[in-house]
C-alpha cells in the first residue's frame, strides 16, 4: 500500500486542539495528583491506624485495578451515585487525579523511608523540636529524592491520559481516531499521533535521567 501523509494537512488544527486537551488534563492532574499523593504518603506513614488503613486501601485499590476500569467507573457510576451530572473534563480530572495520587503517594512514602534512621537520631541528639525535624531535615531530603520518580510518574500520567479517549473525551488520541475513521487512513494518522506522544514523552524521560544524576551527585550517595 502507498502511504500519503498529506491527508493530515487539513487536520493540523484539530490535532493541535486534541494535544492541548491532553496537555491541559495532564497538567491539572499532575498538580492535584502530586498534592493528593503527598498527603496520602504522609497518611500512610502516620501512627493513626484508621488513617493508615483508609489510605492503604485507597492506594492498593487504585494500583491493583486497570486505569481504564477506574475511568469507566468514574464516568458512568459516580454521577449515578452522587446524583449530579459531571462534565467530561471533571470526570477525567477526578479519575486521573485519583490514579496519580495513588502512584505518587508510593513515591513519597519510599522517599520518606529513605531518610536514614541516623538522621532522626542526630536530630534527637541536637535537641531539635519535632517540627524543625520534619520541616528542615526530613522533608527537604525526602522531596529531593522523590523528584526523579515523580517526573517519571508525570510521564506515566501523560501516557495514561490517552485512555480518556475511550470515554469520549476529545484528547489527542480521540481526535486521531476520529480522523483516521473519517479519512480511512489509519496508518498515517495513528503513526503521527504516536509520534506526537513520543516527541513529548521521550525528552521527558531523558530529563528524568539527567535530573536523577544531578540529585544523586548533590546528595553524594
Amino acid at each position, binding site marked *: 500500500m502507498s502511504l500519503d501523509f498529506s491527508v493530515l494537512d487539513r487536520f493540523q488544527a484539530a490535532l493541535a486542539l486534541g494535544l492541548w486537551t491532553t496537555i491541559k488534563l495532564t497538567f491539572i492532574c499532575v498538580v492535584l495528583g502530586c498534592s493528593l499523593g503527598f498527603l496520602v504518603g504522609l497518611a500512610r506513614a502516620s501512627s493513626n491506624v484508621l488513617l493508615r488503613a483508609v489510605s492503604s486501601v485507597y492506594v492498593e485499590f487504585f494500583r491493583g485495578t486497570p486505569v481504564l476500569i477506574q475511568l469507566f467507573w468514574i464516568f458512568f457510576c459516580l454521577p449515578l451515585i452522587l446524583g449530579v451530572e459531571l462534565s467530561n473534563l471533571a470526570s477525567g480530572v477526578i479519575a486521573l487525579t485519583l490514579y496519580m495520587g495513588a502512584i505518587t503517594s508510593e513515591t513519597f512514602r519510599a522517599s520518606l523511608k529513605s531518610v536514614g534512621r541516623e538522621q532522626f537520631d542526630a536530630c534527637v541528639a541536637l535537641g531539635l523540636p519535632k517540627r524543625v525535624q520534619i520541616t528542615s531535615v526530613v522533608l527537604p531530603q525526602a522531596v529531593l529524592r522523590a523528584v526523579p520518580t515523580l517526573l517519571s510518574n508525570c510521564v506515566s500520567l501523560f501516557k495514561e491520559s490517552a485512555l480518556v479517549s475511550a470515554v469520549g473525551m476529545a484528547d489527542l*488520541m480521540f481526535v486521531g481516531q476520529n480522523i483516521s475513521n473519517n479519512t480511512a487512513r489509519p496508518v498515517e494518522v495513528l503513526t503521527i499521533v504516536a509520534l506526537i506522544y*513520543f516527541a513529548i514523552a521521550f525528552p521527558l524521560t531523558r530529563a528524568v535521567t539527567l535530573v536523577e544524576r544531578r540529585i544523586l551527585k548533590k546528595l553524594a550517595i
Partner: protein
Amino acid sequence: MNYTFDFQSVSLAPLFDGLLVTVQLTVAANIIGIVLGFPLALLLMSRLAPVRLPAMLFVEFFRCTPAIVQIVWFFYCVPMLFNVFLGSMTMGVMALGLNLMAFNAEVYRAAIQAVPREQLDAGIALGLNPLQRVLYIVLPDALRASVPVLLTNGIVIFQQSALVAIVAVQDLMYQAKTLSTETYRPIETFTIAALIYFAVSFPVTQIVGHLERRRQAITS
C-alpha cells in the same frame, strides 16, 4: 444518594469467561516478554552502534507512547501495512507481548549492569574466560535481581490488557462493558469487574513485596 444496589441482576459467568481471556492474554504476553526481553537487553548493551541503536529505538518507542495508542495502531495498521489478517487474540498477545518485551529488556539491562565491577575482576583473577564469567557470575545474580521487577511488569500487563477491550477482544473489561449496557447496572458490573482485577493483582504485588524484602535482607 437514593440509588438501590442490585448485585443479583449481574451474572458472573460472562465476567469469568472474560477473566479467562484476560489471563490467557497476560500469560502469553509474559512468555514473550520474559523470553524475548533478554536477548533484546543484550542488543541494548551491544558495543556496535548499528545493533544498539535500533534496539534502543524499539524500547524507547514502546516506553514513550501510550499503550492504548500501541494497541490501536497494531490492530488497524499491521493488517494494512503487511497484508496479514490474524485473529484478534493473536494480535492482542503480540501487541501486549512487544510492549512487555521493551519494558523487560530495560529491567534485564539494569540488573546486568548492577552486577558489581569487583565480581567481574574476581572472575578474571580466578582465570575464568569471558563466557564463564557471564554464565557463572553475571547471569545468576542479574536474573535473581530482575525477578521482582519482572513480576511487577507482568502485573502491569495484566492491567494494561484491559485496553484490548477497546478493539473488541472479549476480555474481562469487554464483558463488563457489554454486561453494564445490557443490564443498565454499570455500578454493580464495573465494581465487580474491578474487584476481580484487584483480587488477581493484589496477591501478586504482595508476593513481589515479600521477595524484595527478602532480597534486601540477604544483600544487606
